[in-house]
């Protein structure tokens, strides 16, 4: 009866980081016009919430798609340690060339977590604030 059922597990994580939205390819005026307050040269920060969704077969011995301790450890190492209480522009190599919008952050988190060995990464959803959220599910 459960045949053909797809089961996804989602876990929410949090980190706080600062960023500045500024593109080297735009003029000063264009940067100010496109990014508004987010172009402030001193940067600003957010409390990001990251939802990580994985899928796979439920192991009958454990009842789990993936052990949460394994998922938590992987996300902690690959994402939280790299991003929490950091300046994304200055301290995350991917954002030296790319603007750390939350769209790009979703793609960066996805690429860091897609190697999770115990389940298939389905989707990353990031809340930049309680009002703005972004999702990326790969190509």
């Amino acid at each position, binding site marked *: 009866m*459960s045949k053909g059922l*797809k*089961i996804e597990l989602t876990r929410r994580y949090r980190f706080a980081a600062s960023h500045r939205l500024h593109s080297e390819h735009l003029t000063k005026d264009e940067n100010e016009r496109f990014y508004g307050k987010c172009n402030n040269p001193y940067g600003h920060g957010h409390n990001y919430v990251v939802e990580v969704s994985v899928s796979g077969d439920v192991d*009958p*011995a*454990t*009842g789990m*798609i993936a052990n949460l301790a394994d998922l938590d450890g992987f996300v902690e190492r690959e994402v939280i340690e790299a991003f929490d209480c950091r300046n994304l522009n200055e301290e995350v190599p991917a954002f030296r060339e790319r603007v750390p919008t939350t769209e790009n952050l979703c793609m960066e988190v996805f690429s860091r977590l897609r190697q999770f060995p115990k389940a298939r990464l389905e989707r990353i959803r990031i809340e930049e604030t309680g009002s703005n959220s972004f999702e990326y599910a790969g190509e």
Partner: protein
Amino acid sequence: MVYLTRKMEFSASHLYHNPSFTPEENRRIFGKCNNPHGHGHNYVLEVTVAGEPDPQTGMVLDLKELKDILQREVTDRMDHRFLNYEVRELNGQIPTCENIARAIWNLLEPKIKRGRLHRIRLYETPDLFVDCYRNGAPKGAGRG
């Protein structure tokens, strides 16, 4: 296609223990959830039904009917119960969020006669939830 979602809550206790594992394996794999006395959660269940609104009533299905199905199939079975010992549908299974969600799917799917069950989302805590879909369910609306 329109997607209608009804939300409900139930509270229940459980523990994770596999009798074929050694006590050490049970503790290592299940951690605090292996406490033999059990522990509990306020589960939040979201049930999404997909369908076309009936031209006469404007409804995909009558919410009262859905509420009654949820009461009979989920609340009456699981609310204020110890899931390991009191819920037949979970017999022989570890009552993880994955297995509870699947059991709820199997209980609800045959009972929903108008529209079709599209998604079950079961929150064990605000930071942990499981979604169930039929394989091949359309992506997009009703998915997130």
